[in-house]
């Protein structure tokens, strides 16, 4: 393809090809601080392409392709090319990765121990991780957490954080503007702006962390924390894993160990400040 980039996020080496320069340039800016090793074979391929040659210029619309595709996915306008690239990268990892059990969860770490937060879109897991990552925590990822099936350790996937809607202003107020990507307004997922993780989080992206606390956040309502049994945590995490079924017994073993060894809570919180305070409190108790 005309425009190419190589990006390494955690253990995943992406090869990205695009019919247009803009999405690749935007990606290269977001991922400029990530380690580069172009000699490594690619684990995942993302293609951003025009369905017809003239659609590169005439009402350009970006189709997402690669090793895995979603049939009938709607293309995005070129102004949202960066979002298309991000969606393509997520898709390839979600459908193709087999070396780890993949959890749709954010994670942060302290002293080699990981706090994993799993929830639906809108649960606030991404915002909580981003805000914690600006404090005393190492951001491991806002979207995926990888669990080593053999040893049980959590591995980071610190892609650029996808801030959405209200979270954009909240985080933008705390970080250097150079760490923010362009505002993608009114996308199918709302307003989106990417946050480049801190340099120390990127530098430590290959370091494993031992899962120490599992949280299932829900944004809104009174502040509450409810301990969750192993069985319910297991059920929720099978639903949150994109490759649990594909991993077979290795996934089953990894997940049973994770829920047995890691205390879990369902939490709800009315705003980010309360959420952070609750998380820190539960962490302090879990760390005892």
């Amino acid at each position: 393809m005309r425009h190419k980039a190589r990006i390494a996020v955690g253990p995943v080496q992406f090869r990205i090809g695009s019919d247009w320069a803009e999405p690749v340039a935007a990606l290269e800016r977001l991922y400029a601080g990530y380690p580069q090793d172009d000699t490594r074979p690619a684990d995942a391929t993302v293609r951003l392409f025009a369905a017809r040659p003239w659609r590169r210029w005439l009402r350009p619309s970006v189709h997402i392709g690669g090793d895995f595709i979603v049939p009938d996915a709607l293309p995005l306008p070129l102004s949202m090319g960066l979002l298309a690239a991000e969606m393509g990268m997520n898709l390839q990892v979600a459908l193709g990765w087999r070396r780890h059990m993949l959890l749709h969860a954010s994670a942060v770490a302290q002293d080699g121990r990981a706090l994993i937060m799993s929830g639906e879109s809108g649960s606030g897991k991404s915002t909580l991780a981003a805000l914690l990552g600006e404090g005393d925590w190492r951001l491991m990822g806002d979207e995926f957490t990888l669990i080593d099936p053999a040893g049980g350790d959590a591995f980071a996937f610190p892609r650029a954080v996808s801030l959405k809607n209200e979270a954009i202003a909240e985080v933008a107020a705390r970080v250097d503007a150079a760490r923010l990507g362009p505002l993608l307004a009114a996308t199918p997922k709302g307003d989106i702006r990417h946050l480049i993780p801190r340099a120390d989080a990127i530098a430590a992206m290959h370091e494993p962390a031992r899962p120490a606390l599992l949280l299932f956040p829900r944004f809104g309502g009174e502040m509450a924390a409810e301990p969750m049994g192993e069985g319910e945590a297991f059920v929720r995490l099978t639903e949150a894993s994109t490759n649990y079924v594909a991993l077979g017994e290795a996934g089953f073993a990894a997940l049973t160990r994770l829920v047995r060894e890691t205390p879990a809570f369902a939490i709800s919180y009315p705003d980010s400040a309360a959420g952070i305070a609750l998380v820190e409190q539960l962490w302090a108790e879990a760390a005892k």
Partner: protein
Amino acid sequence: MTDRTYRAAPPGALRIEPLGELTAIFDRRSMQTHLVVSPMPEILDAMGTDPCSAALLVSRLAAAFDLDGDDDVQPILAERLGELAAMGLVERV
């Protein structure tokens, strides 16, 4: 109603992991995960290797649990055995 007989999965076919109130069962033959609650794990545990009916299960489970004087137990176990068969965890003989 006839008391059907069932056969347990062959040794090593199931990986059974208790997780609090739930029990997760991985079936190595189908690669499927099943989540069950009591009395399913107790039934699987009591089945042994020979064909087993609900009546036989009542007598075996009565030794381990307090089932005395409860006439409902056998039809309930027959129903549960049917459900385990539907999941593929036991086989109708």
